[in-house]
């Protein structure tokens, strides 16, 4: 491994990292609220609502994200829904990760003691207030480790966009590997991923520590 080579390919890799990060951040911002909404719906009193959302979660978790990307980008044009490359990726990622987050939040909601919500009801809080002020803070504390897993998966899953012709970090590494016939670019890719995940892990631990103020 030599430094000159590394500095030569680094710009291309960092360029790919931009795509990785942009997709990661946008997906996160959009899919967490989606997941929260779905998780609440999954516990709805109304059977049809639950049935539809269960179907959604099953379809999204039940098929590989790669296939979902392919269907959104290559399949939907058959019925005249044409997405631009990046929008297709974002759309597929958001609805996919929304389903995963929904399951995590559902688990979190389930494990908050029913007595908490009863106490808040008696105090006269409205459903939305109960959710926002009583339930959600307690759910957040519980779901951080599991959310961490999915968030970190998301960083890496963003590499699937190669299938619709978008270039991300891993793609950039693959290009360099094929061109220069060496595994060094992949090592560098791994290092960049590690740095990204280190930052995320640090953020997640801070969030966990933040919620440690109570037991």
């Amino acid at each position: 491994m030599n430094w000159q080579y590394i500095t030569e390919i680094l710009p291309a890799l960092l360029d790919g990292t931009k795509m990785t990060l942009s997709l990661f951040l946008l997906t996160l911002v959009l899919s967490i609220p989606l997941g929260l909404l779905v998780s609440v719906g999954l516990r709805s009193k109304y059977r049809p609502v639950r049935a539809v959302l269960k179907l959604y979660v099953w379809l999204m978790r039940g098929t590989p994200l790669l296939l979902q990307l392919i269907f959104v980008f290559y399949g939907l044009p058959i019925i005249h829904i044409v997405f631009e490359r990046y929008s297709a990726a974002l759309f597929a990622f958001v609805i996919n990760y929304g389903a995963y987050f929904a399951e995590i939040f559902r688990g979190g909601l389930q494990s908050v003691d029913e007595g908490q919500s009863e106490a808040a009801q008696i105090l006269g809080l409205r459903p939305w207030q109960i959710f926002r002020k009583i339930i959600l803070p307690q759910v957040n504390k519980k779901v951080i480790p599991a959310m961490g897993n999915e968030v970190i998966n998301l960083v890496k899953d963003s590499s699937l966009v190669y299938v619709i012709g978008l270039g991300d970090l891993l793609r950039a590494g693959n290009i360099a590997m094929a061109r220069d016939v060496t595994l060094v670019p992949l090592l560098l890719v791994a290092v960049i991923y590690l740095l990204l995940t280190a930052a995320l892990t640090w953020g997640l631990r801070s969030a966990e520590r933040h919620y440690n103020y109570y037991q």
Partner: protein
Amino acid sequence: IRNLNSVNNKKTTLIVGLDDTFVPMGFREKNGQIVGFDVDLAKATAKKLGQKITFQAIDWNMKETELRNGTIDLIWNGYTKSPEREKQVAFSQPYLRNQQVLITMKQSNINSFADMKGKRLGLQNGSSGQTLFEEKPKVLKNLVADKTAVLYDNFNTAFLDLQAGRTQGVLGDSIYAGYYIRQQQDPDRFQITTGGFSGETFAIGMRKQDTKLKRRIDTALNELREDGTIARLSQKWFKQDLTITLKS
């Protein structure tokens, strides 16, 4: 949505779909620029056509779907002409010779396709080598271990596995084999064996309805062959002349 008919006349920019990891036909340089034999040739062709051209990286597995959906107009990246593919796409006239060759390590003493008997063979998934392997079982398939080949996502990993000794041979494009071996620190360790399969040709893939475009490209390719451009590019990228001489 692009108007797909307009690619036939000069108004619209042509989009060339390519796998940007496919050296030396079309790939990304360290500075991010897309280069390669096919890229040079496409640019020369565009000049002759008087039409703008851009390159779009795609997943090679999705190339025909990209073409059908109109997200690209040309598949131009060491695209081997085959009867199978002809059902799906229209081909330009072929512009380059290629051959499926067997790459082995010298030390393993494999000097012919027949020497692969009982040995493990590696292949790139979706490559034309794979098609030949399946279609002409007598040449290799019936010889090799388990009568199946190990499939790789790209040639690179196939070669890595060859060096690790878990396979004894790789079937692949002569063009890529040449490039790969030239990149090695010790090229003499490798051996290339030819003769198992007959030669094949590279051509440009288009939508079948783009007949006008096909005619214009064929004309341009003729001119480029006659003025020696293709031969010059072949020397530049492959260190040999692989131009197809038309037997008209």
